[in-house]
């Protein structure tokens, strides 16, 4: 325990990195994922095709490979990204594919009558999506989106392999510096992750109860 307290600065800054990447990447993924989901149900074929292609590619690529490309591949087209924006970009782009799928399944779960009624009163595609379908879809996707968020927080750990001093990176680092305190380090890192994921799970389940629509 003393070891953890001695290194509390290290843990707090690592925790901050993990939290920062999670928050920024989560925002990016939510925005991009919503746009992708709208594209996937849109009447314009190239947009549909592009979004489908994007989702398929990112769902079938390991996050490590995405990181790899952004950190080592982008410099080949003269675009050097530093580690932090790179990590946000990698996690965000990757997660957006899953956000898109979650929202699309939400859109599909809205009963056809809703969309038919929206159309019958003369709303356009974007109006019916914005005013009728998406507000309801967002409610049904609260649980899956919450799961995506929690999984994404865990996924940010991969940034440890790409020059980010986040929580996971503490393990090999402190394993070298203080080998006999490895178990304490491990406990500290696990607790720090649980500090993010457990409250998230609690918030998700509360939101779920509040957002649920009785049908």
């Amino acid at each position: 325990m003393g070891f953890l307290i001695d290194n509390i600065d290290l843990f707090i800054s690592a925790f901050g990195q993990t939290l920062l990447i999670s928050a920024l990447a989560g925002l990016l993924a939510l925005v991009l994922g919503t746009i992708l989901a709208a594209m996937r149900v849109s009447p314009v074929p190239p947009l549909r095709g592009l979004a489908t292609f994007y989702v398929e590619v990112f769902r079938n690529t390991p996050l490590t490979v995405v990181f790899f490309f952004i950190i080592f591949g982008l410099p080949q087209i003269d675009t050097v990204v530093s580690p932090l924006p790179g990590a946000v970009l990698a996690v965000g782009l990757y997660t957006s594919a899953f956000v898109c799928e979650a929202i699309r399944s939400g859109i599909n779960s809205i009963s056809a009558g809703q969309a038919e009624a929206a159309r019958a009163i003369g709303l356009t595609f974007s109006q019916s999506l914005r005013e009728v379908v998406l507000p309801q879809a967002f409610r049904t996707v609260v649980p899956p989106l919450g799961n995506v968020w929690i999984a994404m927080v865990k996924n940010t750990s991969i940034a440890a392999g790409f020059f980010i001093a986040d929580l996971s990176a503490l393990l090999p680092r402190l394993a070298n510096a203080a080998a006999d305190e490895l178990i304490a380090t491990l406990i500290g890192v696990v607790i720090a992750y649980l500090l993010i994921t457990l409250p998230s799970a609690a918030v998700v389940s509360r939101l779920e109860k509040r957002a649920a629509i009785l049908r």
Partner: protein
Amino acid sequence: MTAPILYDNPGPKARRRILIGSIVGMGLILGLIAYVLVKLAGNGQLEGQRWAVLFDPRSSVPQFLADGLVATLQVAALGMVLATILGALLAFGRLSDHRWVRIPVTAFIEFFRAVPLLVVIFAAFLLPPSFGVPISAYAALVVGLTLYNGAVIAEIVRAGILSIDRGQSEAAYGIGMRKWQVMTSILLPQAIRRMLPVLIAQLVVLLKDSSLGFIIGYFELLRSARSLVEFFRVDFGDQYSFQIYVAAALIYILVNVILSIFARWLDKRLARSKKSPEGEGEALPLTVEQFSVGGGANTTL
């Protein structure tokens, strides 16, 4: 709800707008691709000789990448088998009637579902040596993948067993079967059909997750690619780096797409099969929950 419900069949005006939108969209995409290609060509990355190295056995690149792929598949295959076995055992434990089995098993499952896979792998890699037990990167990777995915698979199996109508097990008990018999000859055979698509989706995730070996230094595909690049750097600088990275990524995507297609095919086949216990229920919902490090929830698989 299918997409066309969201909009009317386009009339002539809307069709023109869609056409214009399509052209503009295509233009943007093509522009982006062109930009990347021009940049790459500007750096001389598109020269045939640079790509030829990928297929030239004398450069030992194909052999190296093949070795990397084999190492990836090896670790993934072993992890898949062990994780499935562990998952099934954990699921039985969690469904047990005895509290002293149920509670520790539940805690075990919840713990490994809450911790990032990379942390589990790091722990498997760093902990044993600190107790004087040597462990290879390969073993650490397999242990990490097994523990983490075993916990996830346990939940899939449990959901599968619980999804079977209660009448089935009641009837089985009614004709005098024992608990073990009910589980193995009534519940599991029906549950397996329902959970198979989700299970396979999770195994695809496991394959993707094996790329984490890169971080602890196991020579899987990605690490092989990286070491090839470092190797060539001595003599040729960064001349071949980009090509090798692209090759490694393409191999990954190809393998995963093949597995996904297989899973989808299996899903369809099972849905068609008359023997499936469907009736009222359908296959287990593919939850995004299984989305893990490697990612793929394959929600709509």
